[in-house]
């Protein structure tokens, strides 16, 4: 099945929903690892939106990417609570551990303020991190 056919299937699956764009973008991101310019164009045509509108939504959300990125992602919370619990001191080591292999993303609050510093990998949350635990997480991701 070509990419175009698969996109049409995804679009058809959600088209009748109220607000079909977001679920379509999620599926496309999950399946192809990105929502590239061609996908934006095809989704726009499918939903009777302009290319610009779809691009505006894709570019608004951090979790949608214009091109695929094969690196695993570790999200580190650097909001107030985690900051006060010392996350900033972990960053330099984390970056060194990540190198070019792992993508570190900053997020603001994972909802576990009392047990920070926190990180997230996929749908898994990791609390009470110290430098070693975070390094290990990054190295084994």
């Amino acid at each position, binding site marked *: 099945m070509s990419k175009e056919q698969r996109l049409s299937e995804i679009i058809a699956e959600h088209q009748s929903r109220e607000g079909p764009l977001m679920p379509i973008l999620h599926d496309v991101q999950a399946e192809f690892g990105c929502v590239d310019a061609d996908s934006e164009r095809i989704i726009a045509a499918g939903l009777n*939106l302009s290319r610009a509108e779809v691009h*505006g939504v894709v*570019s608004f959300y951090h979790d949608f990417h214009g091109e695929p990125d094969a690196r695993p992602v570790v999200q580190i919370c650097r909001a107030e609570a985690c900051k006060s619990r010392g996350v900033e001191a972990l960053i330099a080591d984390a970056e060194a551990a990540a190198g070019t292999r792992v993508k570190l993303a900053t997020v603001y609050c994972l909802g576990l303020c009392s047990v920070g510093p926190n990180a997230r990998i996929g749908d898994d949350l990791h609390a009470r991190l110290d430098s070693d635990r975070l390094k290990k997480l990054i190295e084994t991701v």
Partner: protein
Amino acid sequence: MGYERQKDFGTPRVKSEKHVTLTIDGRAVTVPEGTTVMRAASEIGSSIPKLCATDNLKQFGSCRLCLVEIEGARGTPASCTTPAAEGMVVKTQTPRLDKLRKGVMELYISDHPLDCLTCSANNDCELQDQAAAVGLRDVRYGYEGANHLAEPTDHSNPYFDFDPSKCIVCSRCVRACDEVQGTFALTIDGRGFGSEVSAGQTLDNFMSSECVSCGACVQACPTATLQEKSVKKIGKPERAVVTTCAYCGVGCTFRAEMRGEQLVRMVPYKDGKANRGHSCVKGRFAWGYANHQDRITRPMVRDNIDQPWREVSWEEALSFSANKLNQIKRDHGARALGGITSSRCTNEETFLVQKLIRGGFGSNNVDTCARVCHSPTGYGLKTTFGTSAGTQDFDSVEDSDVILVIGANPTDGHPVFGSRMKQRLRQGAKLIVIDPRRIDLVKSPHIKAAHHLPLQPGTNVALLTAMAHVIVSEGLADEEFIRTRCDWDEYQDWARFVSQDKNSPEVLEGVTRVPAQSVREAARLYATGGNGAIYYGLGVTEHSQGSSTVMAIANLAMVTGNIGRKGVGVNPLRGQNNVQGACDMGSFPHELPGYRHISDADTRALFEKDWGVTLDPDPGFRINNMLDAAVDGEFRAIYIQGEDILQSDPNTQHVAAGLEAMELVIVHDLFLNETANYAHVFLPGSTFLEKNGTFTNAERRIQPVRKVMEPANGMEDWEVTQALANALGLGWSYTHPSEILDEIARLTPSFAGVSWDRLEREDSLQWPVNEEFPDGAPVMHVDGFVRGKGKFVVTDYVPTDEKTGPRFPLLLTTGRILSQYNVGAQTRRTANVEWHPEDLLEMHPSDAENRGLNDGDWTTLKSRTGETTLRVKVTDRVAPGVVYTTFHHPATQANVVTTDFSDWATNCPEYKVTAVQVMPSNGPSDWQEEYTDLSQKSRRIAGEMEPAE
């Protein structure tokens, strides 16, 4: 007047019967309920600082500059999003507000280049104004932090630049593109500090995006981020003159913003009643032709068309013309002379040309380009309703519930009205499109037709009769309306006719190729969906059954009671800026101004007395008859004002033969157009920027055209016609078009109340303007039809004689495109060619495959009449069996292939149906080569450098 920006109330006007009274800064103000506090303040001249608000866009509430204090309310709400309420007490200036606003402005300015003195918006910038208004004196944050100052400028659009370094991300451009134009080409890319206005997707620029260059974003921009290139080059305008656009029949009004004699930019006029402050790429930007190097500004003559042109004085050109005209009249009689008026010129100029022909030449051989476009509208609507014009104003579309578009492509042909229609469709009105092509209205962002009926070209009458069949046979007719407003006996005859089985959608499916079920559903929707309005264009009129189709449309409107109020009606979208006016002004061979037949002795007597002449009581020749008679030697001299019949009329070779046979062809135009290749006298014309007068748009709206610069050729066009009349000894002495307008009002009952002074005061008037309608008539036939009882006419479907067969298996239909206008004489001489450099032949993929054609291949397009070559564009916008092209470029000469078939009642040519064959090709046709040679030879001017061989 000096230069002032147009007043901006911040948020849109609200239509409401109920009013509320509030107090703003101690002053009471009463506004319609739903009006915002910002607008209410504006109404009493108290201006609240604002950046993201402008009154043609919905309130947005993002800039946080328009905060106010409201007694009893917490905090400082944004005045642009707060509706005024009864008894509300508002303060717009307090120390607390000053501080807040200053803080906001400080943030904006911390990421803005401080290059005001060298900025193209200097002294015409809302950001600058608001910084001054809030008293910003310093920026505590400094300018060293992260910023957007190094963003590169996008120069890709030929008319405006996008410089994101100056952008404050107020989203006005994005919202203007969405809400006003309806193209949705712009977005905000990214989020937070990284937010940037973006055309299209990541790799797009403005030119490659979906942008149609209407200019709404440029107008909306409060800074120099989106700025006309002409302003960057010339500088800020110093005065503005309100005038009327000379492109299509929408009749947009613009402010011509001037610096001395130089036009800086055309900005849509917010109080314009046709356009309501909007514009398209043509009116807004494509005026560069006015100063194009091809423009001819000195009169020229030659004895025969093989010779090069000779530049001469006006006196010599006029006496050369007068002598020849007199001689031909002496030798062959008055009926050997005639002329063509221009739908591009003013009412006053058109009136004078027909006066010259009828009163001076002495014949009724006057015709106009409406012959080849909307003559069936005149005939059809006069027969059924009693007036040769549309029934509504453009505002009416705001009250429509079902819109039926047939044979029209408003988003390309009448873009500003197309945008207004799309606004209504996005509010929820339903749309039915009857068109062989999948035009943009069928499906484009946020627009989707409820029904698209892609009929075979040439079967309009069959389809409309099938719709009538459904309405009558399913009991959906509005009997009360018909009984009170129409002739009941005629209705019954008609109802019997449409009810016959042969007119059912099921039977006619074989002819129209539209599934019967879709026809039934569309008919039910139109009949029962609320206010139903029909909009149509040349896809209706330019057929052998053009007049029948117009009457079939009128029948549909009457049978459903969709006539005589807001939101309904029958609305021809007229092609040219003043085609309505040209028809009103007596441009047809059988009609004096005001559509009164030439054979009517009383009307004739009125004109004879006023003009001091005797008029020929017999109708004269139509254009095609003039050309036929020329070939036969009976018709010998023609005066053509502002029309290029060689390119625009059907069967080009026949037109050429007719012109070639004439002894005297006088072309009065801006350019040496294609017709001028056969001319003996060339009288240079003036542009709409160089003259005073009036145009009448598709909604019968008479609007002033005002001179903003002196004519490059030395005379306005009415003066040229007057000079020619006086060379013939007629002794005319008009000193201003207002005097001609007075004569028109004196002689034409429907114009009786029109005068230049009144137009100066009231901006526009919709005819009729007379005792019965002292202020004009936005909607016609309100209390009864002009003719008395509405007339149902039986419209038998008669297939055109132009049929497909083995030799010519495809049907060609023609049309126009957004960026080009008609034969392109003007738009081809502007940067609009960047969007449409050549005419292309649209063909369905299956037809292309059968012929081994790929996108972009050269093809020969051949009909029984002739052949031409052009490149193919493979697309499923057209159905299999149908091909489509435009006629904007003389190199293509699309009309070489169109035929002599025409409307049975009015001779309007059948441009929309030609049986053709399409084959691969590797070069221009013989005719194209011959014509190119002739045209190069014919354009030589003695004394100018010959082009190198």
